Structures are given as structure tokens and as C-alpha cells.
């Protein structure tokens, strides 16, 4: 009897889990069918260029904006037939399946945002043998064998972090104490963002680092960490938050400590440029936001055209990211902020 109960219960849980999964997918862009099926469903288009997009799928606001942007770029009107194949639960196996299906089908070009960096050699070789150019979108592969793909487009963490330090040193030459709110230890992005920032700030000894802590990309931890740092070092002039969320938390902590955000109190700079951060900058709750730009459809279109024409390209094309250094700039950008 107990066994029966258990079985029934497991079934129920399965059903619930399914419902939630389905609900979770409902919000994502069109074409979320199983990756292996979607290439087969579409019929060969007349004079349209067929592009297979092996994508990451639902991951977060940044990815959503990025993949939506790619889909909006390669439309039928622009002469493309884009086949969007998001990974199932960030699973690499489903990506490889979709990739192989695209190769077998003989698409004209494949865009790849790999969920995992390793294990792509065989698939990429198959594409090469079939003479299908592959362009990496955002995510790189490892080992980074540049002969296997046409080019890679991505924003550069090092450059983005540099832009913050450059702004700080140029506008506030007096210097002071500063702290860094980092992402989780051991993540590549964290190292790159630290590296870029340190490269510039090491040339400006008037800015002294009095602490660095991980706040795990989280708002409330960003607040907690900043709050404590402000107790042990009341003279902090600048907070470098490696993502928007932690910066928003820092902003709350600064206000609560009775200080103002800005030149007369504590400056706060963040990376990413999500809508929330741009809004906060417009409201004077942040001082500087460096964008990590997900919207590089135009640059990607360029690279795709060159690859189709067989032109040789640089193995890495840096995506241009902008920065927002004033509430006015933020207000101007707000109305059509996509992510």
C-alpha cells in the first residue's frame, strides 16, 4: 500500500514539475521546440540564407536580450531564415545534437553560444568538413582553437572594467579609499573584471584599495558587505561593484549610513547596464554604469556577411559597449532600454 502511495506521489510530483517547466518556458522567445526537431520542421527557403543558431536559452535577462536581438536581426525581411535552437536546461548534449542536425541539414552558417566551453572539437570539425562557417556568439570555446571557427563576437570584460577605472581616475584625481564587490571566487568573469580595473588603477596610487569581498552577484549581500566596510573604513570614497545588483545594494547601504551617492559622498560604479541600474543612475543612486552590451546584432550581421563571402576575419571581434556617466545620459537611454 505504501508503495502505491509512493508511486502515486512521484507521479504527482512529476506532473507538477512538468507544469512548472512548461510555465517557465512560456515566457521565452518563440520557437522553443526541442532543438533536434526545429531544424527538421522548417522547409528549405527559396533564396533565403539559412542560419542555425545553437543558443543557450533561458538563463537570465542578459541572455534573453542577447538572443532576442539575434532573432530580430536575422529576419526573413533581411534575407535570412534563422533556426533558433535553445539548449534544454543548459545541457550541452542537446546543443551538440542541434549542432549536428544543422550540419546534416546543410545550413549556410551556424551561430553558436556554447553552454560549456569544452568538448566542441568534433562538432566543429564536422562543420568544417561540410564547409559550414561557424561564428561564436558571446561564449568562447576551450581549448581555443581559432582554426575551427570563423570568428567570435563578445563584449570584453577587461575593457569594460577598464572604462570604469579610467572614468574614476580622470574625473576624481584627488583619489581616496575604495572597495571592490566581487562575484563568486573562481569565476572567470570576476578575474577579468578585476584585471581590467587593476590595470588602470595601479597607475593611480592616490586610489587605495581597502578591501574586496564577494557579494555573490546579489543585492542584499552587496548591501551587507558595503554596510560593514563603511563601518571599518568610514572614509571610503568609491565602490566598484562588478555587477549591477551588488551596486544597487551598495547604494542602499551608503544612503542608510547617512551619506550621499556621488562626488560629495561615495561614488558607486557598476558593470552590466541592466534597466534597473540605468534607472538607479537616472535617480542618482549610482554614479557610473558600464554596459556589458548584449545587443550586438549589427556587428554580428556584418561578421556573418563576411563569413558567407569567405572573407578572412580576426578570430575575436570585440563588441562595443557604452558607458553612462550621468543621470542625464541614463535618462536619455531609459526609454528604449531592452534589458
Amino acid at each position: 500500500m505504501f508503495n502505491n502511495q509512493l508511486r502515486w506521489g512521484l507521479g504527482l510530483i512529476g506532473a507538477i514539475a512538468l507544469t512548472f517547466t512548461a510555465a517557465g518556458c512560456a515566457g521565452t522567445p518563440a520557437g522553443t521546440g526541442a532543438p533536434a526537431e526545429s531544424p527538421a520542421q522548417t522547409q528549405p527557403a527559396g533564396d533565403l540564407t539559412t542560419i542555425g543558431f545553437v543558443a543557450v536559452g533561458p538563463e537570465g535577462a542578459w541572455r534573453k536580450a542577447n538572443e532576442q536581438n539575434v532573432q530580430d536581426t536575422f529576419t526573413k525581411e533581411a534575407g535570412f531564415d534563422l533556426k533558433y535552437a535553445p539548449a534544454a536546461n543548459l545541457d550541452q548534449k542537446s546543443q551538440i545534437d542541434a549542432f549536428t542536425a544543422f550540419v546534416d541539414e546543410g545550413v549556410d552558417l551556424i551561430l553558436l553560444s556554447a553552454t560549456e566551453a569544452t568538448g566542441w572539437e568534433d562538432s566543429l570539425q564536422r562543420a568544417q568538413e561540410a564547409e559550414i562557417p561557424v561564428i561564436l556568439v558571446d561564449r568562447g570555446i576551450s581549448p581555443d582553437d581559432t582554426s575551427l571557427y570563423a570568428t567570435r563576437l563578445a563584449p570584453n570584460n577587461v575593457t569594460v572594467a577598464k572604462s570604469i577605472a579610467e572614468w574614476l581616475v580622470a574625473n576624481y584625481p584627488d583619489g581616496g579609499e575604495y572597495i571592490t564587490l566581487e562575484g563568486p571566487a573562481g569565476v572567470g568573469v570576476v578575474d577579468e573584471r578585476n584585471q581590467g580595473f587593476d590595470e588602470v588603477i595601479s597607475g593611480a596610487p592616490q586610489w587605495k584599495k581597502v578591501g574586496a569581498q564577494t557579494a555573490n552577484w546579489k543585492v542584499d549581500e552587496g548591501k551587507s558587505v558595503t554596510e560593514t566596510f563603511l563601518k571599518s573604513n568610514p572614509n571610503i570614497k568609491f565602490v566598484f561593484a562588478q555587477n549591477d545588483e551588488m551596486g544597487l545594494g551598495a547604494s542602499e547601504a551608503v544612503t542608510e549610513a547617512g551619506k550621499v551617492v556621488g562626488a560629495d559622498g561615495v561614488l558607486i560604479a557598476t558593470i552590466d547596464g541592466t534597466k534597473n541600474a540605468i534607472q538607479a543612475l537616472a535617480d542618482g543612486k549610482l554614479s557610473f554604469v558600464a554596459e556589458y552590451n548584449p545587443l550586438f546584432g549589427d556587428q554580428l550581421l556584418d561578421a556573418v556577411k563576411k563569413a558567407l563571402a569567405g572573407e578572412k576575419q580576426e578570430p575575436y571581434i570585440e563588441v562595443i559597449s557604452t558607458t553612462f556617466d550621468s543621470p542625464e545620459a541614463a535618462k536619455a537611454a531609459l526609454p528604449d532600454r531592452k534589458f
Partner: protein
Amino acid sequence: MSLIVGIVAFVGFLVAGIVYKLYRSQWFWGIVAIILLLSANLIKDPGYLSITYSEATGRLVGNLVDILRWSAPIMLIAVGMVLVIATRGIDLSVGSSMVAGGAAAMQFLSVVKTPDSVSGAAIAVLLAILTGAAIGAINGLLVTYVGLQPFITTLVMMMAGRGIAKVITGGQNTAADSAPFKWLVNGTVLGFPVVILIALAIVTALALFVRRTAFGLVVESVGINPSASWMAGIRPNGILLTVYILSGVLAAIGGVFAVGSVMVVDISGTGYQSELDAILAVVVGGTSLAGGKFSIRGAVVGALLIATLDKTVLFLGISGAATPAFKAVVIVLLCLLQSQRVRNLFTQRRAAATADPAAAPKASVAA
């Protein structure tokens, strides 16, 4: 001046604590650990314990206040968790209840856009509580009427809860403006943070309810021996359902604290791994994961310890990479001190020493 007041208050608390037969309680070592951590901070900065009143912001300012504020959500989920664990269950979904509750509240506030309306904030809190209660009720129903393992049930809800939060906000980190809602978490009464007062009020009310009625007794009896309590006429289903719903509701209020403090819900961050904090707090507080006897006071001490630990790591400037290791060492030491076997080991050695007076006369005196 404020430094002296702080130290005197602290020492007073310390002495009072010792006087009240602290040593016999399971959570004694938790208190010791808190004191040791605070001492470490005190060594780094002699002014660590000082609490001052800031004229500019009209609030009490100090590291102790920060610790108490940081402990508020942990305290709530730990107290909910202690009841669930007492019934031989476990609730892994508290972190997800936090984010789902927080998401419901923030989404509502961002849609209605009434930054000054008290009723708007009240509805937001109510929505959060309902969300938490719903998640708790699903847990409870699956555990009782379906007979699923609590671990599996709440594990599923842990994954589903964050999914629910994503659906509620459409995958965005929703930010909103609401002065009364923010006051609940960031406001002060006579300089004292509201969030601590609310947390203490809830915990006290719950403790009174549990211990002044038969509820605590039946919870323990279900945890100690379900069949015996069944034969004694206790039907566990209602009890289990109640504790899971309570846990969900408390977690959702914790979620309100977490999102209210920054007025944005962080879909992937809010409440992430909070269930581990809660379980740790419960264990540190001397409640066995095997169920049965439980201590709400112990869970509160555990929550305070975790908050102190979090803040100490920050204050001492321990590098981000070493933080988890540092925390782990403290917790392991604490568990060792609490372990009956380890304690027995010491008493046995001392007893052996006493039995052989020629070998160690001084040890026998110490014993």
C-alpha cells in the same frame, strides 16, 4: 562614552546569560562562539561594539545593530525549520519561498505604483505570505496525504519555487518603490530597526504559542515516535500540515525582509541557499536532525551566530576565496563541541586520570 555603554551592556548580557544556567543548555556553545567571534572583531577594532545614535539619519548605528538586522530573515526561516525538523522532516524549500514571496510582493508594488500607500504595502506583504503559505501547503499535503519523503517533496518545491518567482516577475529582477514597505525593513522606531522588532515579535509569539499550548508537545511526540503518538490519539497530518505552512509563511516574511531592504527582488539571488543557513542554525541550536525535542531559543541563537559569522568574515576582511572555509571551520568546531561522543571522550580521560592519583594528581583537581 558610547563605547563604554556598549561594553557594559554586552558584559551585563554575558553575566546574566551565565547566571541563567546557560551551560546546561544545548546552545551554550553557540553563545560561546558568538562571543569569541565578537572578541576577534574587538581585537581588530576596539570600537567594534559601540552603538551610536546618528542625528543625521535618526537611527542607532553600530556593528551589533547590523548583525541583528542581518539575522532577522535567518531567524525567521530557522524557527520555521526547527518545527519541521522536530517532526522528523526537513524543509529545503525555504529559500524558494523567500524568493517567491518577495517576487509576489515586489511585482504587486511595481504594478500598482503607489509609493506612499500603506494599504498597498499591506497587500504586498499579504501576497507574499499567501505565496509562502501555498508553497508550504503543497509541501504539507504531499508529505501527509501522499506520504512522500519530506526531503524529496521540499527539494522539488525548492526548484519549483524559484521557477514560480521567475514566472511572477517574467524573469526580471523587479524593482519597486513603496515607502511603507521599505519602512518595515529599513525603518526605525526610536532609532531601533523595525525589522528586528518584527522578527523578535513573530518569534516570541510563535514560541509562546508552541510552548504554552500543547502544540509543541504534539510536534515533539510525532517526531520522537509517530506510531506511539498515533496510538495515543495524535493524528499527525494536521500537525505536519501546520508546521510546513508555518515554515512557508515565515520564509515568505523573511523574503519580504530580504527584498524590502533593497527594494528589488533578485530572482536568482534572493534566498539562494538560505535553507542551508536555516538548517545550520537549527543544528547549532542543539536540535537534532533526527527529530523530536527542539529548541526555538536554540534556533534563534543559531541564526544570531550565522549572522555574526557572516559579518565577522566581512569585518576581518577575510578574502572572498577563504570565506567558505572559514565558516566551515567554525561550524565544524562547534558541532564537535556539541557532540556527546566528543564530550564523553574528554570526561572519560579525566575520569581515568582521577582513578590514577599517582599519575596525575593535578588533573584530578582540575576534574
